[in-house]
């Protein structure tokens, strides 16, 4: 019998994680690594694109990390892309294949993929934001026939900061996906666009009425991208954003991730612009 990872939350304590083994690691950039993790036999993660897990290294602590593999390609295993930015992620980066960590989740609401069916989709990723979006992008591409036109806009700091290079190359090769990338600072040999991510928006011409947009990126990016999308006539309820917050518990109890009345870990991390437009703390 298969046990869903989230079923373990109700067995004893909602704060007890389940062990997971690192089975593959790839260094994407100087500070970002990709981890392929395997759950114990009989466990499956059954997540939705955009959901996250609380990752533990016993003795160090716990941190929320978005799942970057698509639900269809995950099962007893799943993938995370982690930036080395704090105590937990620093320790995680030092672990090799075969090491054990522990996870709880998946938590929160992912992207409402049913509401994307039949629509044109623009994915907008800034930096590490490509990681949570990748779970959605691969899900959409796996069932490509259910959607209209698909575009990916991706901005990184420099050409050396691109994540998932193999995926990016594969997506760029596809005729049914428009791929546009930009960098803040070019390095030698870079011939692509230079500039902030909003400079890529004019490159995609989609009918506003039938377009949904999924955005994940650093806080500073959201306001600028939203201004452009709203000006282009995209409906507020068709713009989906994922919110990063400090999430100590993942289950709506510890209070850290609260923005106004919303516990981001439970009612988020993915919310529509219509839901957050009056929540000052969401977008500043």
């Amino acid at each position: 019998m298969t046990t869903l990872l989230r079923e373990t939350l109700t067995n004893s304590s909602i704060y007890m994680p389940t062990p997971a083994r690192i089975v593959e690691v790839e260094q994407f950039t100087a500070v970002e690594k990709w981890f392929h993790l395997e759950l114990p036999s009989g466990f499956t993660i059954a997540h939705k694109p955009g959901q996250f897990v609380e990752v533990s290294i016993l003795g160090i602590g716990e941190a929320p990390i978005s799942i970057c593999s698509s639900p269809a390609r995950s099962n007893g295993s799943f993938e995370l892309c982690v930036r080395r930015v704090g105590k937990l992620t620093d320790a995680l980066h030092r672990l090799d294949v075969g090491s054990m960590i522990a996870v709880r989740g998946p938590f929160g609401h992912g992207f409402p993929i049913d509401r994307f069916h039949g629509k044109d989709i623009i994915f907008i990723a800034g930096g590490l934001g490509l990681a949570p979006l990748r779970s959605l992008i691969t899900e959409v591409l796996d069932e490509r026939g259910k959607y209209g036109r698909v575009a990916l806009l991706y901005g990184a700091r420099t050409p050396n900061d691109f994540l998932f290079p193999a995926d990016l190359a594969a997506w760029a090769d596809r005729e049914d996906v428009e791929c546009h990338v930009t960098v803040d600072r070019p390095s030698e040999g870079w011939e692509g666009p230079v500039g902030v991510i909003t400079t890529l928006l004019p490159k995609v011409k989609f009918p506003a009425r039938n377009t949904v947009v999924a955005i994940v990126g650093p806080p500073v990016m959201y306001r600028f991208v939203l201004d452009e999308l709203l000006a282009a006539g995209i409906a507020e309820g068709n713009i989906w954003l994922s919110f990063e917050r400090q999430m100590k518990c993942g289950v709506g109890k510890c209070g850290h991730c609260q923005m106004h009345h919303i516990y981001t870990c439970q009612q988020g991390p993915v919310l529509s612009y219509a839901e957050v437009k009056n929540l000052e703390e969401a977008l500043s």
Partner: protein
Amino acid sequence: MKILPKHSLKAWVERLRATHRVVAPRETYGQYIFEEIENADDLVLDYHSSVLPPKKYLLPPREDLFAFNAKTMEMSPLIEEIQPTVIMALHTCDLHAITLLDKIQGTGHTDQHYQARRRKTTLVSIECLKPCMDHAFCKSMGTLAVPEGFDVHLTDLGDRYAVEIGSEQGEQLIEGLSLFWEPVEADYDRANQVMAGKWPNFDYRLDCDVTDLPDLLAASQDSALWDEVGDTCLACGQCTKVCPTCYCFDVLDEIDLKLEHGKRVRVWDSCLIEKFAVVAGGHNFRSSQARRLRHRFLRKGKYQYESYGLLGCVGCGRCALSCPAHITPIGLLNTLAQRRRPATEEASSRS
């Protein structure tokens, strides 16, 4: 209703102590704290507010979540089996606070640690007949009466207590005890008299109706008052520690020197502390003290109401008493109400 003669109170408490841990307000250096009593003589029913609310028995300041061996990855939950506990002499505000905590901890993912404590805890409350301290504003917040939430509720009738039973758990505390008498008509008359006499002893202290609080706070999000008061707030987090409805926590790992055996624990945290909303990489989503203070007040008076249908403030006044910067909820909310009023009147006279 039952009757407990006052001279039988100690005998009842001693009977309870045979089967329960009895926690009650005790006087210590002129302050009152909830603590286990070892002698019925230690019991104080007529007390002014306790320093810490009784939430510490349901959500301890520090609590083990699970034990682990980091080498073998063995993990086991540490859900404390507490002995049956009676919390005595809860004020009505604290009872309302526990009702809110029950709702929050039982909504969505149930917190088993809280539930394990709560299941074994019986609440004996006492009718507040006069204000317990200057800062209390329970009448304004609607927490001066307790229609439900108690297991046993006592009302001081002079030489006796009127005893109401609110649950089966409460029933068990008095079951078969000859200490409790059946009331006579005079007891009902006396109880009604006492209840009628209590209300004038309390003042309404909020300048708006409690039901207007969510609207008042919504309309005051951009008030300059948050900056003004934020400038005086010391970000000590004291108000959240003494608050009977605050439950936010931080999670920490503690491990031995061999980096092998450890525990994951949670400790009380405070949304007024600067790092509370900081994410990895250093961005602070609530970067100023004014915004942190505003968050606390909107959480109490608006967000909790929207999420759980109950206000997050029960008017106990402990935060006001404990604040080294003399920030009081009544002072702050009333200023917001006063500043809103002229603007509204002006607007309506224009239209």
